[in-house]
């Protein structure tokens, strides 16, 4: 592991143990994955854009931490540094997702901006007690462009949840079904797209977080449970020694990750991440673990109802129309976006050509 001092301080006791031994925490004993909502952790995420070969002007949209929940996620200050361009903070009206929009004029051949955001987060375990307004219940059970709640999605959801005893049992059955029937495909570009009806119709239940967790959300919504994807980025190693479940260097340009929440009536929002269980199966050393492996079992138990606070939640937006954009709506907003007058929408999954980089570090409160 390559931890800075700030990471070192932030990883807590488990991280100290891992560094002291040179081995993942508790590697000698049964694996443990037990997020516990105690200490808040503070981070700074820096996104640098340096667009290449721009002719005729350009604009960019950089997602900002805008998901807030007093129990586990507190967005902080955002600052930026740019030699040129008009910068404004804009918001997706429907979801509340915030982003920094930058517009550069025709004369700017090499637009650049550096955006720094701070936030605090912590582990989750158990439902976060809250109520849901009628409007929010409607929003979080609604279909989106890629998450229909009728047809094959509804048929599948009803089969999975038939005979379930209450909301939590429904949610657990969907979670277990995702873990048992999908798998992570390392060749999927980025985090996947999340076309869940196509996944079910073709029988191709592979992908990454934006596919597998979107499948959870779609199936939950189709069975009447409010649910939402939360799009973000990993910012720190796992304190439980899971190499596959953390950002293992300060460079997190390709560490985007989305998680999910499901609302249990009478209890509140419950954290789930079945996609990360499949990531442990595929990637946790030595790799290609059996589902019965103790490391997988521990993660599987912990990721229904909990997750680690080593991740930034940007937003829970679907079908995002970037303000002022010429290009198509986005299924979700997790990557920096840009358009140039000469070349249209840039490829957000190709940061080296687009030219952006993202770094994250733990900071003092």
């Amino acid at each position, binding site marked *: 592991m390559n931890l800075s001092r700030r990471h070192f301080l932030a990883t807590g006791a488990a991280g100290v143990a891992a560094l002291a031994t040179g081995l993942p925490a508790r590697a000698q004993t049964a694996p443990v994955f037990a997020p516990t909502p105690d200490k808040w952790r503070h981070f700074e995420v820096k996104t640098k854009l340096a667009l290449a070969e721009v002719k005729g002007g350009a604009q960019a949209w950089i997602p900002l931490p805008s998901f807030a929940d007093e129990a586990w996620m507190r967005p902080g200050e955002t600052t930026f540094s740019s030699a040129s361009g008009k910068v404004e903070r804009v918001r997706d009206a429907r979801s509340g997702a915030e982003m920094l929009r930058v517009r550069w004029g025709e004369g700017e051949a090499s637009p650049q901006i550096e955006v720094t955001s701070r936030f605090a987060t912590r582990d989750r375990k158990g439902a976060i007690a809250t109520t849901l307004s009628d409007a929010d219940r409607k929003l979080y059970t609604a279909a989106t462009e890629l998450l229909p709640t009728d047809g094959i999605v509804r048929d599948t959801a009803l089969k999975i949840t038939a005979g379930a005893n209450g909301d939590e049992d429904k949610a657990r059955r969907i979670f277990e079904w995702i873990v048992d029937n999908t798998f992570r495909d390392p060749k999927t570009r980025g985090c996947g797209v999340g076309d869940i009806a196509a996944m079910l119709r073709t029988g*191709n*239940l592979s992908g990454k977080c934006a596919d597998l967790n979107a499948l959870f959300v779609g199936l939950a919504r189709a069975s009447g449970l409010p649910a939402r994807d939360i799009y973000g980025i990993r910012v720190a190693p796992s304190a439980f020694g899971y190499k596959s479940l953390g950002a293992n260097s300060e460079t997190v340009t390709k560490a985007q990750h989305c998680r999910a929440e499901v609302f249990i009536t009478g209890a509140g929002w419950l954290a789930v991440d079945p996609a990360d269980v499949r990531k442990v199966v595929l990637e946790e050393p030595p790799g290609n673990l059996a589902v019965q492996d103790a490391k997988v079992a521990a993660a599987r138990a912990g990721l229904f109802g909990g997750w680690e606070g080593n991740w930034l939640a940007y937003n829970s937006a679907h079908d995002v129309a970037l303000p002022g954009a010429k290009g198509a709506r986005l299924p979700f907003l997790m990557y920096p976006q840009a358009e140039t007058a000469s070349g249209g929408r840039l490829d957000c999954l190709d940061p080296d050509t687009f030219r952006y980089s993202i770094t994250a570090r733990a900071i003092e409160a």
Partner: protein
Amino acid sequence: MAIPLRGRSCPAIPPLTRRGVLAAISALALPAPLARAASSPDFVPVAVPAAPQPLPVLVGASTAAQPVAGQVTLIHFFATWCASCQAELAALAGLHAAMAGRPFTLLAVDSGEPEARVRRYFEHHPMPFPVLLDESRAAMKAWDVITFPTSFLVAPGAAEALKLEGEANWADAALKTRIASLFKTNTASNNQQ
């Protein structure tokens, strides 16, 4: 480890895998996934959708993903990340050359990808036919495409298209004969006028 299903197609977004298919079949008796031909192309007649909106084209004027009047039209949906699509694009270039001088139009439609990615791909792999940019997937939806590649062959004036999901061998003699039969439809139609 993902095991490509005969290396034939790239459904949804990531490549189709045998394991995914088996999972869907075994899990809770879900609706069976679409069957795919192992050898000869398996065309399914489908209705030609109402005229979709024109799409930007990599080179040239905006064009809708729809049949061209008086032509046998091949509308081919693909994505640059789809490995079997890449091989097939090269084969389609051969078909395009073989059809030179005949009333044949090939429209390749890239769906769900940003323009910069598609442009970059074709800078390195130039093709002789138009590439339509269906970034919003509107044309993909209009044609009910759920897997890449998917192709539609449409005879002149036909209300139905022949849909083929998965990879096809466009150099295959039987397939060329099939396309040629659509020209005959064209001739017959012209003779009747």
